[in-house]
C-alpha cells in the first residue's frame, strides 16, 4: 500500500504523518499518534467505545479511514483536560461514578461532549438518544445520564470549559 502524507489537526496541534491509505482512524490515533485513551470495543462500529470528534461531530474511529480526516479537526479524550484540570464532563463522570471499568468511558464522554456542544441543556430523553450508540456493560447507564446532566449544569454555571 502506498503511503501518503496525512495532514490534520489532532487535539489542537497540526500534524503531518506518512500513513498507508487503508489505515483506520483509530489505529492512526492509538498507534501513530500514541494516544491510547480512545478504545477499541467491538471492532465494527457498534459500541461507541472509539468515539472521537471530527470537526466537533462524534465519529466512530474504528470504521473511519484516517485519510477521511485529512484537513479536519480531530479531538480525542486526551484533549479535554487542561493539564490536571478536568473538563466539566470529566469532573461529572468522576464524581457521579459514571465509570466502573472505564473502558466505555472515553467514548461515552466524547459522545456526550459532542451532544453538549450542540445542545447545552439536553433533557434525559435527549441524553438517552444522544448516547444510544454507546454501549456500557457495567453501569446500567443511570450514573452516565446523571453525569451528563451534572456536566450540563456545571457548564451553565461557568465551571470548567
Amino acid at each position, binding site marked *: 500500500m502506498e503511503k501518503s502524507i496525512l495532514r490534520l489537526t489532532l487535539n489542537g496541534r497540526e500534524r503531518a504523518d506518512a500513513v498507508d491509505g487503508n489505515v483506520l482512524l483509530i489505529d492512526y490515533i*492509538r498507534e501513530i499518534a500514541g*494516544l*491510547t*485513551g*480512545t*478504545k*477499541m*470495543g*467491538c*471492532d*465494527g462500529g*457498534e*459500541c461507541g*467505545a472509539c468515539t472521537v470528534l471530527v470537526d466537533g461531530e462524534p465519529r466512530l474511529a474504528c470504521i473511519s479511514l484516517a485519510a477521511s480526516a485529512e484537513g479536519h479537526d480531530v479531538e*480525542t*479524550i*486526551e484533549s*479535554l*483536560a487542561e493539564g490536571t484540570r*478536568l473538563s466539566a*464532563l*470529566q*469532573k461529572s*463522570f*468522576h*464524581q457521579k*461514578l*459514571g*465509570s*466502573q*471499568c*472505564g*473502558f*466505555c*468511558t*472515553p467514548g461515552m*464522554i466524547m459522545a456526550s461532549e459532542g451532544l453538549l456542544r450542540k445542545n447545552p441543556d439536553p433533557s434525559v430523553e435527549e*441524553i*438517552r*438518544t444522544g*448516547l*444510544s*450508540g*454507546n*454501549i*456500557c*456493560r*457495567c*453501569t*446500567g*447507564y*443511570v*450514573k*452516565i*445520564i446523571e453525569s451528563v446532566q451534572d456536566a450540563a449544569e456545571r457548564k451553565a454555571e461557568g465551571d470548567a470549559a
Partner: protein
Amino acid sequence: MSNQHMGKAVPHDSAAKHVTGQAIYIDDIVLPAGHLHGYVSMSPKAHAQITSMDLSAVRTSPGVAAVISATDVPGAIDIGPVLPGDPVLADGWVEYAGQALFAVAAGTESEARAAAKRADITYDDLDAILDIETARAQGSYIVEPYAITVGDAQAALAKSANQLSGKLAIGGQDHFYLEGQVAVAMPGEDGDMLIYSSTQHPSELQHLVAKVLGKSSKDVTVEVRRMGGAFGGKETQAAPVACQAALLATATGRVVKVRLDRDDDMMATGKRHPFHVNWRVGFDADGVLDAAAFDYLADCGYSPDLSLAILDRALFHADNGYFLKNALIRGFACKTNKVSMTAFRGFGGPQGMLGIEAVIDDIARHLGIDRLDVTKRNLYGRDGTRDATPYGQRVEDNILPELIDQLEASSDYRQRRTEITAFNASHSHLKRGLALTPLKFGISFTATFLNQAGALVHVYNDGSIQLNHGGTEMGQGLNTKVAQVVADEFGVPLDAIKITATHTGKVPNTSATAASSGTDLNGMAARDAAQTIKARLAAFAAEQLGADGENLSYADGNVLIGEKTLTFAGFVRQAYMHRISLSASGFYATPKITYDPATRQGRPFFYYAYGAAVSEVVVDALTGEHRVLRADILHDAGRSLNPALDLGQIEGGYIQGLGWLTTEELWWDGEGNLKTHAPSTYKIPAAGDLPADFRVAFFQGENREDNIGRSKAVGEPPLMLASSAFFAIRDAVASVAGNRLNPSLDTPATPEKVLMAIEDIKQRRDTEQ
C-alpha cells in the same frame, strides 16, 4: 481503627484515569520494538476429525515469525481449569465451531490474519450434538446426572391437593465485556515468562501458562492492573489467549500480544449456560408448596470448564427464598458441540431461581391469587421453623419477609395492581404487567477450599502505604473498598495508600475474583496484614515510648499514644529507626463453611444476600414489543462499605439481567455456528432501554455474620432482580386471555417470542371456550 472511609460513598480509585483516558489496559501497554501480534485460527466445524493440517503456506506468508499447532506445544496441551478437556490448540479433532486450531505470530495483526487464511486443513465430519434435548436423549453428559433431595417429593406430590407441571427454556448470554480477551507475553531469561493479562484469575493463569510451557509456577509471573469488564467471562476464558501468547513468545523469543477482535471473541469464548428447567409441583389451596421436583438441564458446551460448580449453584438456588419441605432437584450437565459455557455473574444461580419463580407464577395464576401472595406464603420462616434448605443449610439470616413488605409499600404494589387491571380491561393492544420477585443468593465459593485470600501491605518509612491483595479490579471498585478498609486501620487518608496491580509475585495462590467474594475475602486479608503491622507498632510503642500498647488509636493521619499525639509518618519513622518491620502479609479463610459433595449436604454459604424488585412493563400485543416503565428495587448490601459503588452494581446488574432475559439472544445455526456474534445481531441494552422510572434503595440492616464491616457482597445478586421484568411481561401476556392461563414464554423474551406467546395463549383461550 477509625471509621472515616468505610461506609462512605468514595468514587472509584481509577475514575480520574478513566475519564482522561490515562487508565492503562493491556492493549494500551507500550511494547518494545520488534514485538509481534498473534492471531488464532478457529475451527469452522462443530465436530470433526482433523485429517490433515498443512501450514506451510502460512509459514511463508509475509511478516510471519512463527506458526504453532498442538504438536509444537512443549508442555501439556490441556488447559482445563478443573477437569481436563480444553486443548490450548486443537489436538487431532475439533469439538466446537470457534475452537482454536493453530496460532500465528507476525509483525502486524493483519499480516497474521492474512497468513492464517492460507492454511490447508481437511476434516472428517462427525455428528454434532447442538441442543440440550439431543444431549439428554443420547446420554451425552459431562458427569452423570445427580440430585439434591429433601423429604420425599414423589410421595408428597402424589398426595398433593393440586399439581402443576411446566417447563422453561432459559437462554445463555455473552459477557460482552467492553474490553475483549487480550494478553501480552514477555519472555525473560531462563525461559521465564511475564504475562500481562485481562484476567480475573491470575494464579490459575500463571499455573496454566507454566503447564503449556513445560515449566513450573515459579517461572511465570502474571500481572493485571485492571480489566475493562469481566462479569465471569475472564475467570477461565482469559487463559487460552495468554497461553497462546506465551507459546508464540517462547517460539520466537519476542514479545507477543494476542487480542481477540469482537467477532472472534464472541465465537471462541464461553458464555452463560443455556438451561432447560422441567418441573412438577404439588401445593395446597393457598398456593403453599408441598412438593417440588425439578430437572435442571444445563447446556455445558463441549468441555467441563466450571460447569459442575455452576450446575451445583443452580441446584442450590432452586429454592430461591422458598421453603421446600419435599424436593427432588436433579441436575444434568449436558455435553454439546458448542463453545464451553462458563462463569457469568450469578454462576448458575439465576437459572436456578428462574425455575422456581416460574413455579410461583404458574401457581398464582392457576389459583387466581396475586403472585405476591403466593411468594409471601412460601418464604422461609424466621423463627427457626421452615428454615432448612434442600442441601441442609439453615437460613439463619432471613430478612425477606420484612424486605418484601417494605418494597410492597414503597412501590405501591397493590394500588398499581388495581390500576393495571383497569388499564388492561380498557386497552386491547397495549397491555401492562407487574411483578415482584425476591432473591436470596448464597455467598461463598461452593468449593470450600477456594474461600481464602492473601494480601501484602508495605508501610514505607515516610508514612505512605502500598497495598497489594490477590483480588482483581474489573470495574467493581474492589481496590477502592479494600483501600477504605486499610485507610481506616491506619487512620490515614485514602491518598496515602497506593493501590497496585495484582501480581502473582506479591500474593501467591489466590482464588479467582469471583462469586461476589472479592471484597469479603481480600478486605479481610488486607485488614489482617494491617493488624499484624499494628501489633508490631503497639509493642514498639509500649517498649520505647512507654505507651500502654492497647491504647494506640489511629485517626486523621495521627496516632494517639496515651496522651501523646504523633503523626502517622513520624511514628512509623521512629519504628523504622528502631528496626521494626513495617511490611506484612495477611491471610483470610472464610469461617463456618463446610460442604460434603458426596452427600450434597452441608453449609456451602457463609451468609445469604437478599433483595427484591418490582417491575412494571407495557407490551404491545400487536408487535410483541415491550418496555419497562418503572422498576423499584430494595437491595440488601448489609452495612454497605461504599454505597455509591454498590448502587452502581445494583443498577448495572439489573440492566445486565434485563438484557439476558429480554433482548440478548444467542442463536446457533444447524451447523453449530454462532450467528449472533456482534452487537448488530446480539442486542445489548442501551441507554434508551433503562426503565423510565428507576428507583433503587438499600435495605437497612447489617450482615449478621462477621463479614468485613458487616457488609454483604453485591457483585452478582442484583442481576437476578431483573427476573421481575420477565415475570411482568408474562403477566402482561396472560392478561390477553383474562389472567387465567399460563403463558408459554421462554427467555430471552424478545418481541418475537412475546408475540408467539400471545398468539398461543389466545388460541388456547379460544379452544377452551
